[in-house]
């Protein structure tokens, strides 16, 4: 099992698609940073031109409203959080489908136990999604920290999100924002890792590669659509995965319950049903 997991992990980290996924994520983070820096520059020019008295007092931009997860105004963050389910499937989630189509799975199952292969595959797909999200979000945090000071969020400025009293961990955000950020990055990484594993569940039935790739994203959008229709946006991953928690005030129990449901939904068909299928 350990050996297989090592092989699968090696496949993840030596895969070009993994670096493509990181590249797309990093590009969006850099784009956002550029927009924010331009905005700060424009504001500084205004101050130089008209003086502080005319422009008015303002609270400087901080790391805690510049990090991609905390941005609520610009396009790159909207793109990243909407296409995250697509990005996380890119590195390794379709590998099982490819193994089946190419016949590679037969070579492995001659030498290894079925249980070990399927478990290693599931863990490696989860890890590929988890690692890519973690790296992209920490990269954004890092580059934002290079340009913006880690000023404490000030609720009266109305430039920080979450601002709602009922938002999850809101007290933590206004007292220990870095802890909140790191906790949220881990929540996102775990949840999106589980979303990457949806591709494995789909691979059991799919006959088309785009279905495997896009299935997670389509499900993610359908859940958001249904939750919005019934007025329960708190249950939508598209809303609660963003640390701003805009238009939703989720609860840890909701996130945990959805995570468990997601893992059950993907693990049962893959680790239990698919394992019993004849690949030869």
């Amino acid at each position, binding site marked *: 099992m350990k050996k297989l997991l090592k092989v699968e992990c090696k496949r993840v980290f030596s895969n070009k698609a993994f670096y493509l996924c990181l590249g797309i994520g990093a590009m969006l983070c850099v784009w956002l940073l550029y927009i924010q820096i331009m905005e700060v520059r424009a504001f500084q020019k205004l101050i130089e031109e008209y003086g502080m008295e005319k422009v008015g007092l303002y609270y400087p931009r901080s790391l805690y409203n510049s990090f991609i997860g905390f941005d609520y105004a610009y396009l790159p963050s*909207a793109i990243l959080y909407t296409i995250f389910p697509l990005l996380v499937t890119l590195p390794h989630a379709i590998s099982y489908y490819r193994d089946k189509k190419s016949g590679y799975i037969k070579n492995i199952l001659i030498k290894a136990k079925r249980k070990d292969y399927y478990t290693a595959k599931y863990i490696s797909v989860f890890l590929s999604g988890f690692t890519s999200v973690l790296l992209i979000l920490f990269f954004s945090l890092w580059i934002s920290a290079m340009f913006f000071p880690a000023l404490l969020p000030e609720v009266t400025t109305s430039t920080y999100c979450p601002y709602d009293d009922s938002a999850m961990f809101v007290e933590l955000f206004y007292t220990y924002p870095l802890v909140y950020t790191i906790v949220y990055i881990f929540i996102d990484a775990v949840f999106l890792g589980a979303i990457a594993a949806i591709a494995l569940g789909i691979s059991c039935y799919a006959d088309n590669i785009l279905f495997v790739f896009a299935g997670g994203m389509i499900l993610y959008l359908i859940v958001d659509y249904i939750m919005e229709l019934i007025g329960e946006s708190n249950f939508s991953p598209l809303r609660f995965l963003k640390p701003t928690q805009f238009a939703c005030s989720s609860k840890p129990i909701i996130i945990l319950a959805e995570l468990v449901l997601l893992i059950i939904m993907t693990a049962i068909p893959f680790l239990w049903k698919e394992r019993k299928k004849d690949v030869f």
Partner: protein
Amino acid sequence: MYFKYDLKIGFRKNIMCLLTAAAIVVTAGISFYFQILDEKSAGLELPRNLNSMDYFLHIFEGMRPFDQFSDDKFQLPITWFLFNMILFYFTGKYPYSEIYNNHGANVLMKGGSRKKWFLSKWAWSIVCVLLYYIMAYIVVAIFCFAVKIPISFDIKPLEYQNLLSPVFKCTRIDTIKVMVLPIISSIAAVSVQLVISLVASPFMGFMFMAVIYISSAYYFSPFLIGNFSMLARNSIFCINGIEIIHAVIILTVIIILSLAAGIWIFLRQDIMERK
């Protein structure tokens, strides 16, 4: 030969997409119906009774132009976005599913023309778009009929909360324009997706369209195709909105360019290498 083959094979496994489009339209219609009922029971009176056109406009409205410098926070219009993403999934799934890994290369050889092969895939995509929208429009009509909402094709003013209302008196021609523009817009988008999928992969084509459509919701620009499919940004419903004649010209140019680029690329592509 190609087109007949595509029609036969391409639709076989894609019925689910048409059903999903119907499901989106029905659920959006039900939600709107209950929203209006709730508001009526809360004592809010509508200036007039709603008709099927109001339901149609509500389902396909998208969002009004977003002002990035205002205090409003950006929120993706999920009904519009999901409806379009399902379409891109539908049209991205089939065209290149066989050529690089199955017997598709044999089919190409039997037909004897790469140009015809690509045109056939493009025509198949157009048929998909037409079927998809026809299905959605019919379902809107059936839904309205089922809940006893008068069927009407007139776009009438309605000054009520956020519902779409025309900025000038509309004629039947405007109704046709409003119903046809999302279709032309989707045809152009699908043509672009076909080219991107050819150059990179169906996955990249799908992701590219997702990014374009999110950007379209954010930026009100004629260079972003998604803007044309949002009725809320049309000059009929929005002052300074997109003029239909401009939209048709831009979309036609996009379709022609994508088609030319697609044929040009496919004629020069090494299929065996891609295999």
